[in-house]
């Protein structure tokens, strides 16, 4: 399908086209990232500006604290859970969009993306109204007589963080899977049908394997940003649901830049390793293999 065949003059035209975004990325992504890495080699402390010193002291003092490794592990578990569940929930949406919605698919797609008309932060805060002690969920549980007093553990917990992040990501996760299903050659399913496969078997043996690159793309699409999330955890995470992003934020807010930079580099390395592992698992050797 999406072949990378050359087109006449494509190389030069590509260079011209990419000059502006490349400059943009250099100025607002690569250089800031370089500044971040430079900060991580500064002596730990509160300083307003970079100094011409290079030391591993911040790495030594920060990485020797066991609690940071624990919070990184906790963050990893949260990100994997969120990505896993989001993909499972997103698949049926993508399937419906690709095969079942027919003429209503514009409507279904619009409905799926409707929450994004509201700001991310507002939607997180709205969850407080649902999960709180006097929240909708507790009121409902008491009204139908399942509990006789409000349950305190919905809000301000690790569960709340996972729940909200899944909610936020499901529509996004559906998109790469949908695109993949959409591009699928439907005659393959007809062939399976002709050869006597049940619908479920055809799904399992034909549709699902063919959509796996989309599933992997969706998984990482959710997992990587979740690793660095801090807004959700700070709004609904409570004392037990802090993620590494919150620790980085605490350091940066209080001007202990070197320690915050070290944890940022650690998070970056974790995300890169996760991506490399994922690419290997999914058998992706070239971006063209992903074909979302």
């Amino acid at each position: 399908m999406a072949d990378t065949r050359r087109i006449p003059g494509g190389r030069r035209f590509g260079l011209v086209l990419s000059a502006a975004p490349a400059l943009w990325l250099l100025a607002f992504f690569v250089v800031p990232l370089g500044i971040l890495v430079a900060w991580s080699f500064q002596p730990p402390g509160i300083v307003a500006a970079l100094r011409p010193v290079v030391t591993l002291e911040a790495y030594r003092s920060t990485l020797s604290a066991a609690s940071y490794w624990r919070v990184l592990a906790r963050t990893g578990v949260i990100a994997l859970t969120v990505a896993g569940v989001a993909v499972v929930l997103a698949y049926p949406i993508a399937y419906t969009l690709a095969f079942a919605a027919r003429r209503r698919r514009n409507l279904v797609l619009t409905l799926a993306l409707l929450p994004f008309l509201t700001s991310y932060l507002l939607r997180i805060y709205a969850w407080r109204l649902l999960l709180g002690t006097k929240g909708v969920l507790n009121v409902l549980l008491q009204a139908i007589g399942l509990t006789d007093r409000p349950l305190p553990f919905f809000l301000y917990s690790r569960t709340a963080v996972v729940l909200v992040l899944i909610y936020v990501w499901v529509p996004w996760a559906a998109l790469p899977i949908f695109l993949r299903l959409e591009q699928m050659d439907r005659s393959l399913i007809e062939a399976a049908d002709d050869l006597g496969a049940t619908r479920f078997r055809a799904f399992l043996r034909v549709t699902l394997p063919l959509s796996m690159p989309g599933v992997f793309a969706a998984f990482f699409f959710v997992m990587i940003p979740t690793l660095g999330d801090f807004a959700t955890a700070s709004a609904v995470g409570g004392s037990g649901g802090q993620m590494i992003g919150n620790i980085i934020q605490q350091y940066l807010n209080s001007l202990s830049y070197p320690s915050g930079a070290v944890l940022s580099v650690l998070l970056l390395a974790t995300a890169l390793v996760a991506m490399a592992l994922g690419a290997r698992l999914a058998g992706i050797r070239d971006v063209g293999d992903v074909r979302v």
Partner: protein
Amino acid sequence: MRKLFRLLSVVAVLVLVGAACAEEGGTGGGGGEAAPFPSSPPAAEDPGPLRLLEWAGYEIPEFHAPFSEAYPDVKLEYQFADAGSSFYQKVATGGVEVDLAHPCSNWVTTWYDAGLIAPIDVSRLSHWDELDPKMRELGKIGDQYYFVPWDWGYESLIVNTDMVEELPDSWADLWDPRYKGLIAMEDFSEGAVAMTAWAFDLPYPDLSDEDLEFIKQKLIELKRNVKLFWAGSTDLVQAMVNGDVAIGYGWNDQFAKVVDGGVNAVYVDPQDGRGGWVCGFVVLKDTPHYDLALQYIDSAISPEVGKEAIDLYFLGHSNTKSVELADPETVEMLGLLDTDVQARTNFAVPLTAEQRDRFNQVWSEVLAA
């Protein structure tokens, strides 16, 4: 990926080289001798403008009415910051250039050590003698004052009496297993370290490594009782009004709002004293409008402006005469007249950059644990 790393390391090196070239000559402060007051034209001959770094919302005309009356032609130009750290960061990096800034007492030493601020000629402040003496001393370095207190408030425990039967009456009570999952703490390293030091009788802020290790363990232990860390003022008010937590470490204006939200609550007066925050004005060393800046401060610390701070924003005001002009009900609610409580209050002392960084390390590990 390897390419990205190579590119990043090149950029990192370039940044450091850049920093080396831009390195400025030494920091100020240090010496024991009295620093001179910056020279400037007298306020009456200074056309301004006066540039201020303020908290958002503090630019309202009520907070500088006497100044505007006396100097109607001087324009006030505001920049804003939203945390003690960002006030310092903005000025220290040269991001903003102002004549006056409004940080809090706990940051004064850091500003001074960085050579950013000028001593204040208090003889030019007509209201100086009316200010609370304890708050005045917070900004004294050597024989000179570098900070004029303006607004202040308490930090203590707001307790929902419908949810908690036995009230805590010292900071150490917070560790009582009875309060499991009931407490909201502020996400604020200095506050948490200070509170733990008072609870266990440690000499805040001059804490040894062993003291800090002990405080860290204690705070990690406390997490069993802590349900959430609040960052924005309304987060705590909301969590208390919704009944998500029963005990909140918070300010007296938050207490007033919690009561206003219909909660039966008390504001605890711990044996070891409440905490207290004090914010106020510093004058930047390089200001060409020194005298004008002092006139602005003198207007801000007048009882007339203090009345507005209390009535409009539920703040305490450093001028002891302000409470006489303010709405008695608000004064009562905020506990501003309780001189006995005030005398035992642990107002936030200035920290050095090194102390603050050590406290940040402790708090980050507590959050992560």
